[in-house]
């Protein structure tokens, strides 16, 4: 019974949150990694792209809610997601046309593009705050819980509860679907293959007749879709506040780099590595340890490695370790 309690407590406070958070990071990191692989620069504006897509989705969600359109137990935001993606696509294609294309034609160095993307980040950040305001916005509706802690306790008779929120489940399901679609697209379709060719060797791809502008456009389309999905899922699961998306940049880049920049599989692995490290290192293990260990060696203290204040420091340290010892990342991406 104690062992079961330990597992439930662990799932409730570590496994479930970390899996949901990991999926959100993985989707974000996929966008970063695609841009790095194909357009060859680190896109600092990615966090704010997520915020922009999520913002459009929220606005459409609010309109749908006021018009009485809903999905029953599922959040209305899922219905509004395609509109958010469209808005985000328009935004990204516009910035590409106005800003990035100029530098691409100049054959600007990646480091210049990185700085340019920071400029885009500030502008996009400003636009989002200007339109929706800097505060927390609530847009989640439908059933909050698949199973609530109280129900779980009543059902199983365990002293620990397990809460599974609808948003966590949706996050994981949508992330799996998005990733499956992406891999199918990259590996099976002609356009996907041309993108990979362009990523591997730009000159060779050009010689074989691949239209670079088309590849760039498709990349932005996919990135917009991934960013919006990631942004909306994060907002549904946690809360939407423009500034937190800006802060997400660090764990997202850490995920992409840990997995190996430019490698989609690495981005997903990296997302989960970062999420699990952040959650497990800052978790106080006292409760779980007290269930599992015999009384004589059970800890009195909290058994917490780092205070939760240092959550972001964890991703930073992992980033440093990877860059020092394995700069190409776990999955052999490109050296940074």
């Amino acid at each position: 019974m104690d062992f079961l309690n330990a597992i439930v407590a662990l799932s409730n406070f570590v496994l479930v949150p970390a899996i949901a958070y990991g999926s959100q990071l993985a989707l974000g990191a996929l966008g970063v990694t695609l841009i790095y692989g194909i357009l060859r620069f680190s896109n600092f504006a990615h966090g704010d792209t997520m915020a922009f897509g999520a913002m459009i989705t929220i606005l459409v969600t609010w309109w749908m809610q006021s018009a009485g359109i809903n999905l029953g137990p599922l959040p209305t935001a899922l219905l509004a997601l395609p509109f958010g993606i469209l808005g985000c696509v328009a935004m990204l294609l516009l910035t590409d046309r106005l800003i990035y294309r100029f530098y691409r034609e100049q054959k600007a160095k990646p480091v210049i593009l990185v700085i340019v993307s920071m400029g885009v980040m500030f502008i996009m950040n400003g636009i989002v705050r200007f339109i929706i305001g800097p505060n927390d916005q609530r847009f989640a509706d439908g059933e909050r819980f698949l199973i609530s802690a109280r129900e779980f306790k009543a059902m199983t008779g365990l002293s620990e509860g397990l809460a599974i929120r609808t948003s966590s489940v949706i996050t994981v399901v949508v992330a799996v679907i998005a990733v499956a679609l992406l891999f199918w697209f990259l590996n099976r379709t002609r356009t996907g293959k041309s993108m990979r060719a362009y990523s591997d060797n730009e000159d060779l791809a050009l010689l074989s007749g691949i239209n670079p502008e088309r590849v760039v456009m498709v990349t932005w389309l996919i990135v917009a879709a991934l960013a919006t999905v990631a942004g909306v899922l994060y907002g549904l699961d946690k809360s939407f506040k423009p500034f937190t998306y800006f802060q997400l940049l660090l764990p997202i880049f850490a995920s992409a780099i840990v997995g190996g920049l430019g490698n989609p599989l690495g981005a997903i692995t990296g997302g989960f590595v970062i999420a699990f490290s952040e959650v497990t290192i800052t978790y106080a293990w006292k409760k779980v340890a007290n269930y599992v260990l015999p009384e004589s060696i059970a800890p009195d203290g909290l058994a917490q490695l780092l205070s939760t204040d240092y959550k972001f420091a964890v991703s930073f340290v992992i980033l440093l370790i990877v860059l020092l010892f394995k700069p190409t990342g776990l999955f052999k991406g490109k050296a940074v």
Partner: protein
Amino acid sequence: MKKLLMATTAMALMAGPAFAAGHGSEVKIGVILGFTGPIESLTPTMAAGAELAMKEVTDSGMLLQGMTVTPVRADSTCVDSAAATAAAERLVTSDGVKGIMGADCSGVTGAILSNVAVPNGMVMISPSATSPGLTHANNEDNGLFFRTAPSDARQGEVMTQVLIEEGIKEVAVTYTNNDYGKGLADSFQAAFEAAGGTVTINTAHEDGKADYSAEVGALASAGGDRLVVAGYVDQGGPGIVRAALDSGAFDTFHFPDGMIGASLEETFGEEIEGSTGQLPGTDSPGAAKYAELVGDAFDATSPYAGEAYDAAALLMLAMQAAGSVEPGDYKSAVFDVANAPGEKIYPGELGKALQILKDGGDVDYVGATAVELIGSGETAGSYRQIVIEGGKITTTKFR
């Protein structure tokens, strides 16, 4: 003779502006509160309370030689000390205020006090800064700082009494990571442990994060009968409560003053049934009279609105008692008007108080919140104990 003439002329010249100042028809009082920032939903009613007192004094026409009192608002931001200092500096140097009603949050109040008020010799009366760190036992503030809100050292003791009476012996504490939160959490822990209780964990949370599941994970692991959330109702506080409810870590909470507000009811309602809390408040007749005076203009029971009225009233009564609007002159009169002996003064009676002072009498200002200054110039403090019942914040008793 020539010398005497010269001296007389010089005297007359010097006296001229002094008289002019005395007869000046206007005195400005700064109202510096966090109109933006983490307690922005509380500050409009606080400012309205202070301005109500000023209007009352102006309308009575009794202050010194019938001076009018003009409020000048400034934004303390509650969290940004640099911005608050700049705003206060502007009030003193460019607007020429003669006293400051504010600031609100403890961190910015301390910053304004040491960077602006003390160097410029400006009196400030804060309606809501409660950090024990602002108690100046050794006169570091030159007698310039007062507050109509009690120190959190006192709130920590009251909180302990509430919880012990509820039969709660073990609590987890999380506080917002600033002067207010830390001061309150530490004074509570000291008081609670002295009373035989156990604080399983006393940890900070950062405001403005999207996700508090990691913080709640640590709190849940430490365990306890109740979670004390010493945070802000418009900031991280609700995030902590939401995450604790969602994960089933805690069902009931204890809320100090910063967490009690209308939005707490709206957000959680019956989900936090049985939770307790306390905020400064009194059952003295002053509170009712204040509510009557306010009428429908704004919510008179909003936290610290009464304290703000009292802070502004004290400033003006002290000016009257000292017969001068200069902070250096009237700072020593604040204690005299706030405490016994003298006629008790309730809200709406400022005109009467000014008359008594003018006639050389003595007043004991009670005001909306039963003001009684102790120590270095802070109110002793009475608290309103609340419980969440049927999804509503309900007053159980006063302490």
